[in-house]
């Protein structure tokens, strides 16, 4: 009897682990944030209370615009990354194992760089004194070096760049596991190699492609450093405003309210994207 009971206890403990982690890592912090979004802001800090002022303030045109910018930039950056990463990964899966490993190590290396380093590198690479424009001048395409380090293109390049590594790593197992007979079968039925990409490969990999897009989209939504360093204020994404409220101004209740709204919008977008994945 005794060992049985011990086993049952162990089983229960192991099975409750996911729930416990979920509660401690997600539910409790979210709960605290949710509650504090209703608190009252004071001159110095904040105190307990219940008011909807912070939520009303999120409807300020500034934040609606920032939210729109966030969704727009995340959508574009995720799409660019998937469009670039998919053909790369698909053709790479035809290389020898050793070459694949080298490529994956390089890609993983890029991923190990923090957003700070990526943003800094791109701001340098797009700047006037040390940037790529000098190279174009040298080639004779341009008259004098230019600064591209601030603005929409710079933000999109840096965001997509970071996403590219994630996209490659996410698509890699699906591309290598894809049975080459699918394309061959399509060929024996008259599909040219180029056409089989659109008739067979992409439709079969639709779900992983959309899943990858969703992950990239969510990652990009939370970008802070890149838009702040490489963008002008009208390219500031919502997370920049949230960090400004929380860190610089100490307005925790408002930052919380913005975060909750932000979270809801993100979830809504993911649900919409998921619809596309399930539809056949």
């Amino acid at each position: 009897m005794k060992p049985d009971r011990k086993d049952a206890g162990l089983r229960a403990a192991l099975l409750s682990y996911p729930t416990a982690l979920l509660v401690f890592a997600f539910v409790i912090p979210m709960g605290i944030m949710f509650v504090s979004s209703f608190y009252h802001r004071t001159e110095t800090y904040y105190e307990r209370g219940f008011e909807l002022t912070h939520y009303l303030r999120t409807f300020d045109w500034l934040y609606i615009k920032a939210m729109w910018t966030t969704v727009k930039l995340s959508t574009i950056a995720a799409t660019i990354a998937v469009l670039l990463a998919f053909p790369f990964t698909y053709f790479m899966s035809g290389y020898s194992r050793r070459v694949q490993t080298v490529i994956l190590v390089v890609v993983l290396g890029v991923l190990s760089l923090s957003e700070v380093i990526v943003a800094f590198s791109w701001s340098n690479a797009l700047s006037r004194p040390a940037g790529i424009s000098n190279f174009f001048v040298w080639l004779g395409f341009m008259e004098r070096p230019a600064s591209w380090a601030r603005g929409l293109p710079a933000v999109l390049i840096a965001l997509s760049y970071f996403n590219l590594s994630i996209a490659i790593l996410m698509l890699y197992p699906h591309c290598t596991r894809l049975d080459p007979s699918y394309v061959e079968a399509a060929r024996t039925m008259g599909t040219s190699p180029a056409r089989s990409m659109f008739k067979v490969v992409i439709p079969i990999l639709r779900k992983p492609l959309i899943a990858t897009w969703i992950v990239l989209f969510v990652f990009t939504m939370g970008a802070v450093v890149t838009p702040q360093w490489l963008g002008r204020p009208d390219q500031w994404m919502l997370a920049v405003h949230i960090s400004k409220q929380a860190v610089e101004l100490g307005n925790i209740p408002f930052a919380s309210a913005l975060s909750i709204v932000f979270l809801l919008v993100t979830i809504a977008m993911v649900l919409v994207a998921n619809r596309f994945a399930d539809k056949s």
Partner: protein
Amino acid sequence: MEAPPGRGLSPILSTGVALTELILSNIGKKFGSFTAVREANLRLDDGSFVCFLGPSGCGKTTLLRLIAGLEIPTAGEILVDGADITRLPAHRREIGMVFQSLALFPHLNVEENVAYGMRLRKMRKDQALRKARELLELVKLPHIAKREITELSGGQRQRVAIARALALQPKLFLLDEPLSALDANLREEMQVELKQLQRRLGVTTVMVTHDQSEAMTAADVIVVMSAGRIEQIGHPLDVYQHPANRFVAGFVGANNLIDGVRIKDATSVECFGESLRVEHMQTDVQAGSDVTLSIRPEDVELTETTDGENIVRGQVSFVRDLGFEVEAYVMVGDVRLTAKWMPKADPTIREGDTVGLFLDPSDIRVHLS
């Protein structure tokens, strides 16, 4: 009394099933320094069913892929009805192929899979789907047209893959170990069905297999391959009864191989220290050269006596009665011979018995070592 190929089918299927002649001439294929196929010569007649038979890695799948256009040969040429298609890419050849993994498209349902090639050729959707239904009827699966591929059993997938490969009325019907994923009973059933289907349609067919009974069931012609080389081409029974060499003798069907035999003269060999008479001696062998004998288990006869012409003595080491046949292992010296007979013949023998084995001179085959 067989109906001519193509008769009795709906017009949509019977018209355009053109009989096709395929010629492979000195085909070779190298992958880097590895030679997968060497000097393959083969001529397939109109409407015949050919099996490439051999162990894994013998080049049979490569040869099939060369015919399909999925690989391009490094030597030789391929002719279909007189036209050189050696370098024609797969999507321009009129072939239908069933892959080992079947490769049914998971994003399409059953009828869409079958209709895929027709839709690609801009056939109207309702027309393509109607023809897909007819093809599914041909493989006895008209009721599953709307199902997803993941909902099908192994046998159903098999049939859908066959229907899809036949949809475009290919000149050549190619199958790469199509039945290997099925369990034994279903596989035998499908072998028979495949053969009957092919006979009805009359389409020239090439199937790759490593299973000799599958090859014997389905094929009009068997091409036995080993190490990239064609070892023998012939009618199944002919290959079984007159294997061209030691490899074929050992690979096609169960066989007793006796090595270390020496030629005595034009009609006899020295084996187990005795002189054995053999009828089928190749003419070019010299007295004193080493050869291998082969004799089928069903041709090894147990005798009462242990003396006499072409009788060798041995000790029974194992007996098993399978109901439909009895099999015994007999040690002759350190060579194990297998004998098989119908249970009704019923010589009662036990393990440990000393028995005589009669090796009929007309059943012994002689292979140069």
